[in-house]
């Protein structure tokens, strides 16, 4: 008699990649496992032994090491190991040892291969590094294309409903009580009701129509009807409704087509809520496009500051709509640039036109179009060489001050390193800027460049763009020829390294140390951006955006085939993780930051982050090898 071992299949079903399997497949896995107990400190897989099973940790903790004994991974309940060797020559490449008393399920190779064939998500999961990240990142993109925003997201409460026999007065009282502006009217079910619902006692009703505030005016009061008139006599027996999985766009069109302001939302035949035109307008105004246009409508810096919460709303909205990190980064940068431009316009209106041409220059993430919701301002002024400090600097200092202060009130805090146009050093004519870059590139030292790498992401925001473009040309021309400069930059790029991964509620470091949280910018996106910048500088790219830079790098032989794709997917995943966790912070009404706490990291996200960290770590090793730095 076949009997399912629920104890095994249910446990498997809670953990990736098994959670994506059908019940049937899960039962099959469960009925083929072999079980073994390992006391703490005993070997589970010995180096170079033959391996024929996938290993699953039912309880305990397992340490996986590299051939040279270096820690590769620390795994806990629900994690798998050994798939790497199974997909290759069956020789154990990463030996595994029980760190605690552990119970291991062994899943035979034949079942493992069957799962890989039967389930794409399982196959993707056990593929290491790039393919796993790639398919996840692309899966996120696919979801975004398919979904849009569904109208059910706008429904925030259950509809108010009333019996057709009830009086219009009673209906009006109900609306007041619930502070609603429309009520659904229910009647005994007819032969084949289009929309129906069961009440708490299991009685079936059909939905015959909707009565709105306007109907009370037009159809009751204006007609001089008594308050005792039954609702059923007033309501129009015609209901226009929309299915809950339709798009917001479709809901809006439906309202316009039918000239109505209330739209009942149905899940199949049952009403789930009523959407009002104002709900749709509110939703649309959270779009970043709307925000940008309203930035340019603001008459003063104070009014601009009031838009700061809207930036967060637009950010949350984009993330929830499934935008990728490039879209979010570009939109936030556009918003940041728009604030800057508007502040400059307002300042010029009061201070008068500039005495000599200038360009307001963005540095760092804004220049790369990769801005995040947690950001400070990094900017500078590049002024025409006709600049005479004695005559003109007063004007530009005031201009810089107004922009900088304005940005600060809009949520872009002052730069801690004082890289702002208010600092005289960064408010200079083009010739001085050219000399700065010449010094950085021709007389490089890691110490000297430590705080200057931000200047190698530079882009014009407003004014005479050619001033900044000349600097971009100069960098693109000089950087590839100066190996020592690249080496010094590379050395700095290696200062920040990724962790190994996660274990239970800790962040695991390569030396086995455990931390409670991780700064995903400092340990992930920033070092990744740093190393992409160096390769881009080496190949003379003028691009500022990391993904554009990778495209330029692809046109050279600088990186081995496939490596830039790995970096692309890793950067995308790290950036998305950071965005997701900032959304979590905002939703919990906390100040968003760059930290993520392991308890907020889902299991599959952990695996992907580990892959991304690994990709970054490998890329850093290559950077070290490619640009060795010696103190001549």
């Amino acid at each position, binding site marked *: 008699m076949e009997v399912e071992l629920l104890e095994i299949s249910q446990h498997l079903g809670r953990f990736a990649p098994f959670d994506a399997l059908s019940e049937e497949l899960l039962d099959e896995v469960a*009925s083929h496992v072999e079980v073994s107990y390992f*006391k703490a400190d005993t070997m589970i897989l010995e180096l170079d032994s033959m391996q024929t099973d996938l290993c699953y940790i039912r309880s305990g903790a397992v340490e996986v090491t590299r051939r040279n004994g270096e820690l590769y991974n620390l795994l806990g309940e629900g994690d798998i190991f050994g798939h790497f060797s199974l997909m290759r020559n069956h020789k154990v490449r990463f030996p595994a040892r029980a760190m*605690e008393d552990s119970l291991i399920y062994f899943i035979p190779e034949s079942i493992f291969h069957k799962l890989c064939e039967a389930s794409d998500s399982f196959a993707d999961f056990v593929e290491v590094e790039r393919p796993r990240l790639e398919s996840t990142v692309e899966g996120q993109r696919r979801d975004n294309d398919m979904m849009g925003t569904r109208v059910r997201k706008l429904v925030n409460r259950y509809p108010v409903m009333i019996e057709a026999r009830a009086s219009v007065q009673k209906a009006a009282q109900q609306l007041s009580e619930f502070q609603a502006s429309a009520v659904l009217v229910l009647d005994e079910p007819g032969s084949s009701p289009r929309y129906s619902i069961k009440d708490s006692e299991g009685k079936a009703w059909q939905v015959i129509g909707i009565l709105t505030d306007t109907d009370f005016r037009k159809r009751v009061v204006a007609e001089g009807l008594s308050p005792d008139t039954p609702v059923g006599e007033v309501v129009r027996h015609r209901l226009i409704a929309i299915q809950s999985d339709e798009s917001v766009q479709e809901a809006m069109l439906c309202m316009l087509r039918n000239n109505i302001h209330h739209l009942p939302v149905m899940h199949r035949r049952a009403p789930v809520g009523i959407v009002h035109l104002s709900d749709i307008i509110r939703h649309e105004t959270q779009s970043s496009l709307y925000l940008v246009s309203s930035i340019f409508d603001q008459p003063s810096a104070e009014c601009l500051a009031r838009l700061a919460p809207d930036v967060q709303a637009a950010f949350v909205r984009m993330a929830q709509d499934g935008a990728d990190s490039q879209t979010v980064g570009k939109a936030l940068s556009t918003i940041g640039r728009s604030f800057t431009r508007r502040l400059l316009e307002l300042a010029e209106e009061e201070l008068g036109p500039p005495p000599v041409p200038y360009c307001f220059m963005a540095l760092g993430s804004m220049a790369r179009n990769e801005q995040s919701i947690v950001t400070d301002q990094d900017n500078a002024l590049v002024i025409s060489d006709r600049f005479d400090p004695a005559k003109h600097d007063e004007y530009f200092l005031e201009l810089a001050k107004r922009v900088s202060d304005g940005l600060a009130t809009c949520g872009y805090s002052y730069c801690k390193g004082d890289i702002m146009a208010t600092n005289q050093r960064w408010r200079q004519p083009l010739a001085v800027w050219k000399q700065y870059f010449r010094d950085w590139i021709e007389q490089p030292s890691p110490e000297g460049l430590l705080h200057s790498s931000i200047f190698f992401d530079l882009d014009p925001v407003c004014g005479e763009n050619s001033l900044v473009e000349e600097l971009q040309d100069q960098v693109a021309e000089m950087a590839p020829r100066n190996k020592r400069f690249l080496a010094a930059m590379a050395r700095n790029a290696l200062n920040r390294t990724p962790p190994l991964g996660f274990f239970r509620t800790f962040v695991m470091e390569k030396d086995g140390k455990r931390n409670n949280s991780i700064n995903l910018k400092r340990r992930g996106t920033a070092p990744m951006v740093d190393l992409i910048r160096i390769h881009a500088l080496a190949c003379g790219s003028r691009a500022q955006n990391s993904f554009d830079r990778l495209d330029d790098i692809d046109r050279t032989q600088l990186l081995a085939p496939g490596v830039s794709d790995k970096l692309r997917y890793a950067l995308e995943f790290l950036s998305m993780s950071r965005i997701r966790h900032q959304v979590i912070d905002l939703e919990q009404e906390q100040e968003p930051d760059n930290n993520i706490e392991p308890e907020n990291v889902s299991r599959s996200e952990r695996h992907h982050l580990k892959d991304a960290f690994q990709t970054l770590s490998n890329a850093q090793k290559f950077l070290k090898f490619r640009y060795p730095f010696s103190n001549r």
Partner: protein
Amino acid sequence: MPLIRPKTRSASDWHDYLVQRRQQTQVSALEDFFAGADLSPILPIEEAPMMALDLETTGLDPKRSEIVSIGMVPFSLSRIRVSERRYWVVRPRRSLDARSVTFHHITHADIEGAPRLDEVLEDVMRAMAGHLLVVHYRHIERAFLDAATRKAWRESVSFPVIDTMSLEARIHRQSWLARLRRWSGRPPASIRLHDSRTRYGLPHYHGHHALNDALATAELLQAQVASHYAPETPIGMLWS
């Protein structure tokens, strides 16, 4: 609660008993069973073919209570072979009361279509043959199987088992530390299946399902041997 007091047999007693019973028995399934049960007492535990066995019954007294389900999982010290598990639900003569229904996770519907114990007993004995049986609390499994063969074939049956509960008692109740603990008035460590498992870091399973409990017992023995015995330990030192 009357329990059959087990006869404690030494290794050579077991050998003599099994040989004698094999020659005397009239039932071919029992002949095979006795032949297979006659394992050398000096066989190292790491080489022993074992079978974890659990019975769910309507009560504790084999004279008055009946078996409702039987679960078995074959294993060795290195692997528990779940794919070769066996499981029977059998229909008792008296109907189950509601309490034992919920207790054993067996419903009336399960039982309705189930065979009588007599009908499956031959399969059960043959499945066990050739393995050293491993149970948690031997006084249930051995006594109920004896009662079953007496009823079906008018023959008694006994066999050596490794009892994980008595191993746990040896470890946790008879050591000098355990005696000291008892002498100081603290309660002795619990040797029930779940509590014993917890001491080895084994996960919590839902109890009282014959197959789960058989699996749980097999895992417990692996853990006990890994923690307290050498893999070369002769089985004769562990069975009773």
